[in-house]
């Protein structure tokens, strides 16, 4: 059975992929910047 046709078990269904984590964390950081909780990020 290929990996794609396998149905995830309930706990797996709610686990985020790398993409999911990346988007979630990036949006969270954007929110913190917008709210002023992250004030200035130097480079």
């Amino acid at each position, binding site marked *: *059975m*290929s*990996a*794609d*046709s396998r149905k995830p078990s309930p706990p797996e269904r709610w*686990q985020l*992929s*790398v*993409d*999911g*984590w*990346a*988007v979630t*964390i*990036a*949006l969270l*950081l*954007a929110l913190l*910047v*917008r709210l002023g909780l*992250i*004030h*200035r*990020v*130097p*480079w």
Partner: protein
Amino acid sequence: MAEGSIALPQVQTFRPGPKFVQLIPGVLLLAAIGYLGKFVEQSVAVYAKAHHLHLPNIEYVLWAIVFGMVVSNTIGVPRVFLPGVLTYEFWLKAGIVLLGARFLLGDVVKLGGISLALVVLELAVAFTFMTMLGRWFGLKPKLTSLLAVGSAVCGVSAIIATKGAIDADDEDSSYAIAAILALGAIALFTFPLIGHWLHLGDRAYGLWAGLAVDNTAEATAAGALYSDAAGKIAVLAKTTRNAMIGFVVLGYALYWARKGQAQQVEGKAAFLWQKFPKFVLGFLLISLLATAGVFSKPQIGSLANLSRWAFLLTFAGVGLRTNLKELKLQGLRPFAVGAIGEAVIAVLTLGMVLVAAKLFHL
């Protein structure tokens, strides 16, 4: 492979939670190598200025990759660091989403539209040529499919997605991944040199790197090595290419299913959604918010800098996972097919980009 050294990347699912602590050493290693690269770039610049020397400005990107490669190919990456080092893909995607703040949606639509037209042309050229080349070299048909997908769309992720969809062998996907990674490493160093030699503008070069360099991390690095602006455009072009992954994998899945050598695809829309890279949506959302004026100018600057820090970790990871010994062991024929194919695709995409640059004043 030496005990404890880094292996070629396979499917990795980054799952924080109880294993979060295991990620810390590797992430700290990525940060240390990346920061060392930034420190060396700044130190060289300060030294050159103080001594009135005209030294070439070698970007932190190159230093971070080279330092990572030195570690990976000499002492190897100890096992304790591996889980954290493999998060480089997470940092890459988070960095791309945050980079969306630097694009107004109008630019995304304009440049993305041009990229999309070029991507469609590039896909047609890449599939046709790689398939012919695979036949000439007598490669197994599924290995040829994997190499074609890897060079046409987006490297390792596309190969992994296609492998599952067409029931390809592990061995074939390892060959294809090794070939694509080796070629990505070569492109990383050759593309900026060719770009400078041809005096390409930032936009034209960025488009070319995004269209022709296979893996997203290498395409991002190849763009950033040229200039900050070129890096931005390379990410946009590569993201457009990544967005096509679902259609390409679906096409191959249907092709091999019709031949009776892969499972039938049920629910094409769900299949497309499953394969669609979700970070593209995050990138578009941040760009939309920036365009709508949700962020002030200093806040956009902060988001751009967060994106740079994320890329810093990514570039260190690119170096750490490039193991030259591993790549040498992977056989010559798949590499030769990939190399010839990549060279032809690079030349053809360069031609397309030069025409587009003239037509659209890039």
